[in-house]
């Protein structure tokens, strides 16, 4: 923590050694253990383990402080004779003091530290410890939760029969009913029918495009007429486990962003403007004949359409962040996503 400053403990130690006082103190170690227990307790069991840790820390901290200030509290009268004894002992044990510090009245062994140096080191060291004790939990509270417990939500969009083949819908749904309106999201959904893989297994195929612009996250809008008058399909509202789901029928010729003018084709590929990649898509599954949205993933580009499309998938990245090309090296480490 304080590289240049000699740490107070070692100073203390050497002082003690020279003075033939009891061996180096263990109080700081106990104090540190107490703090560790407090922090561990915050994760496991704040009430019990943290209180135990706090008691340990307080007791050892008190003893440490007592120890560290012993010299201050102790009268010089007591210390002085001890020093003199120490010097004699020191002379006998170590090599004779080669250089004398001009100012010091009694010749002090080289290894000894003056009182002011010791107090300086102790003040800065203890200050650093206090600063650390305050900063670590505060920074932890501020920083960590942003990167932890990213839950994956499943969104029930209703039975597959709601989605006629090859028809587009603008779906607005609630991702997390616990959070409510804050987690409303919009996606463009098209039923591509079934796709048969090389082994002959048929599975349903959907194109589900997020409406968050790949430039800076504005809500893109479908370029095309909406409603039954143009599309021939009614717009509907249904209620599922996730609450209200609005489905508005639409004939999109693409998507446009109202902020900075990005334009996309119906598959979500960028055709003009600043977006750095195609629109994100939702992964999905079919459960009991119902369409379930999973989390989003990023897409560099889409070749082809519908069930035959080849999607260049990437892990979810924030808007404006390249997922391919040389620019991707600007964003080497993504924070955890669900």
């Amino acid at each position: 923590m304080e590289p240049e400053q000699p740490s107070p403990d070692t100073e203390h130690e050497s002082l003690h050694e020279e003075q033939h006082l009891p061996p180096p103190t263990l109080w700081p170690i106990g104090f540190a253990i107490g703090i560790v227990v407090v922090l561990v307790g915050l994760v496991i069991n704040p009430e019990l383990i943290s209180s135990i840790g706090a008691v340990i820390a307080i007791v050892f901290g008190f003893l440490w402080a007592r120890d560290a200030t012993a010299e201050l509290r102790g009268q010089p009268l007591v210390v002085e004779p001890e020093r003199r004894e120490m010097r004699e002992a020191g002379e006998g044990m170590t090599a004779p003091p080669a250089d004398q510090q001009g100012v010091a009245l009694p010749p002090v062994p080289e290894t000894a530290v003056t009182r002011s140096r010791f107090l300086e080191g102790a003040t800065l060291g203890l200050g650093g410890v206090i600063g650390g004790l305050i900063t670590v939990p505060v920074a932890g509270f501020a920083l960590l939760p942003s990167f932890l417990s990213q839950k994956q939500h499943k969104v029930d969009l209703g039975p597959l029969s709601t989605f006629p083949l090859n028809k587009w819908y603008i779906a607005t749904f609630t991702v997390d009913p616990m959070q409510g309106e804050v987690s409303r999201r919009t996606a463009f959904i098209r039923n591509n029918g079934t796709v048969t893989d090389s082994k002959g297994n048929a599975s349903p195929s959907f194109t589900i495009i997020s409406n968050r612009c790949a430039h800076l996250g504005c809500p893109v809008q479908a370029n095309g007429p909406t409603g039954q008058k143009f599309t021939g399909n009614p717009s509907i509202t249904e209620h599922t486990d996730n609450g209200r789901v609005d489905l508005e029928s639409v004939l999109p010729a693409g998507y446009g962003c109202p902020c900075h003018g990005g334009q996309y084709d119906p598959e979500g590929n960028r055709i003009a403007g600043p977006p750095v990649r195609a629109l994100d898509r939702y992964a999905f599954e079919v459960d009991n004949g119902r369409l379930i949205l999973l989390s989003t993933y990023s897409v560099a580009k889409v070749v082809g359409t519908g069930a035959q499309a080849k999607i260049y998938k990437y892990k979810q990245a924030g808007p404006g962040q390249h997922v391919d090309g040389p620019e991707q090296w600007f964003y080497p480490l993504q924070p955890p996503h669900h």
Partner: protein
Amino acid sequence: MAVRRKPTKAELRRQRMEELVNFPLDWLEERSGLIGGVRYFLFRNVPADVNWMQTLGSAALTAFLVQAITGVILAMYYVPSAATDPATGKPVAWESIVNISDGVFMGWLVRGMHRWGASVFIILMFLHMGRVFLFGAYKYPRELNWIIGVLILVMGMMEGFTGYLLPWDQTAYWATVVGINLNGTAPFLGPWLAQFLRGGQEIGGETLTRFYSLHMLVIPGAIMALIGLHLYLVIRLGVTSPPWSKDAAGMEPEQEEEPRLRPGLTRPVPRPAGASALQAEPGGRE
């Protein structure tokens, strides 16, 4: 005065009044030296040719104080919650803003002053900066104060950004989406910064409370400290004369030898009657 006579009753009363006023001031001065400090601040000399443009800094300070005071009152009524009120289906924060503007007595005035004071504050900071630039007042020895001023401007804009989210309406939400994603495109640390600002992956209740804390505690604290430093340096280094002034303080001595009007030498600036005595020893007690 030379003739000693018994003071009249009126004079005695006046004397007592003065003592009554002076006593607490002297008491404070003796124990803190604050009165001397204030006196130094008020009666320090500034160049005789300062002009109207040099009031922009103090005007910006006034705008900041308006923000601070109205902000404290707003914090008493504002609820930083993005949750939906089950009774109305509207977000709690949004409802509290409507309540401040409509329900709370004079709330419209306090919120209106805060809302528009923000813009006025930013404009005044820009104008003040323009004046300092025009006067070349960022030059030696005032470089540090320029930097502090720029930091105050940046902090002021951050106040604008964080405060913009609080009403939790459409403009607020989407401006914040863009603002945070903008930070997210910074190379390397951007994605982490964005996630920190959001308090998670998506903008939500966490973001609102986070911005609220930044807006009313962290950034204002920083601004106040920086303003304190800014003013300290202004007082320490003094205010510049307009550079085109015929009588600018600190002008080249070569030019001084040329015939030049120096009204200050022949025509001393009048001092206020009460101030002359106080002025005698700025910073000290009489």
